């Protein structure tokens, strides 16, 4: 998977490293601001009210 992505990044090595960093940052942002806020209430960690 990682090798497959790396082989498809265009440009010389330094450009590929920059692209890889940007790609990683984008995925982390997507997780932090979209996926986790959505998933968090569905997980049994942080419910504080009584029913």
């Amino acid at each position: 998977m990682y090798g497959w992505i790396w082989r498809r990044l265009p440009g010389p090595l330094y450009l590929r490293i920059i692209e890889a960093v940007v790609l990683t940052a984008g995925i982390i942002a997507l997780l932090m601001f979209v996926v986790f806020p959505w998933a968090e209430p569905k997980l049994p960690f942080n419910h504080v009210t009584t029913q």
Partner: protein
Amino acid sequence: MIPRVEDDYDDEYYDDDDYYDDEEPAKPAPPPDSMARKAVRGVGEALITMGLVVLLFVVYEVYVTDLLSAEKQADATAALDSEWSSNVVTPPPSDPNRQAKTTLIEGKAFAKMYIPVFGSDWKFSVVEGTTDKHLEIGPGHYKDTAQPGEAGNFAIAGHRVGKGAPFNDLDLLESCNAIVVQTQTQWFVYRVLPMSNEVAGWAGNAKSKEAACTGVAPLSTTLGDAYAKTVGQEIVVPTQGEVIAPIPHQVGTTVPADKQARLLTLTTCHPRFSDRQRLIVHAIETKSYPVADGFIPPEMQEG
């Protein structure tokens, strides 16, 4: 003839095997990527990725939500401050323990809460409502429970981990610790009730003589058996909503408001990082003061 000595020196000097061997041995060709090899690698990478995602989730839950909530809490506090300073302050009612019921708007802060033993920087604006959205802003008041200073049970839920973690240290509260609630017109001082193991010997307990414990006594001795289960701290299962009933654990029995104690109940998750149980803290109102310019209740200095 001297027999050849088997030595294991490996330096070039004596190594006459490879010494004249100029050519590098050819690297073994990488084995072709068979389907099995690709599959194993794919599974391995997927597992590593999932592990990283889980680690990131922990970082999100414990740190990132704190940052997001701090901003919301600051906004709510700013809105509350501007509301309090702009409105003409109605004079506190003649009976300091009777407050005109105010209309609370969901998601809006209506009171400030201080726990002096947690340090002077421990302060949160309490919002109305206990949905996930409300609790991201700060501690949330259970709708339909009493308001600050009212007879009954002023019940508040708060996060223990992440999202500002207002109730992170709730388990450290001891009997007689002050929980101060400020509304637009009044200060209310609540004190944590004696713990279940202190109830029996409370009168003989040296602690009960301390100034901080004035007005604090096991409710079963002062208010009767209806309050027998109302102690300083308890751990219950999430379905036990009766802990925030006007008289905790008494559902269905109607008690006139003037026979009810003025309680404060805090709820959070327990154990930390789990929602298996709920940690409950009960406190009773012992004092109230009208809000006045420059006045800060002496209880705020405790800690």
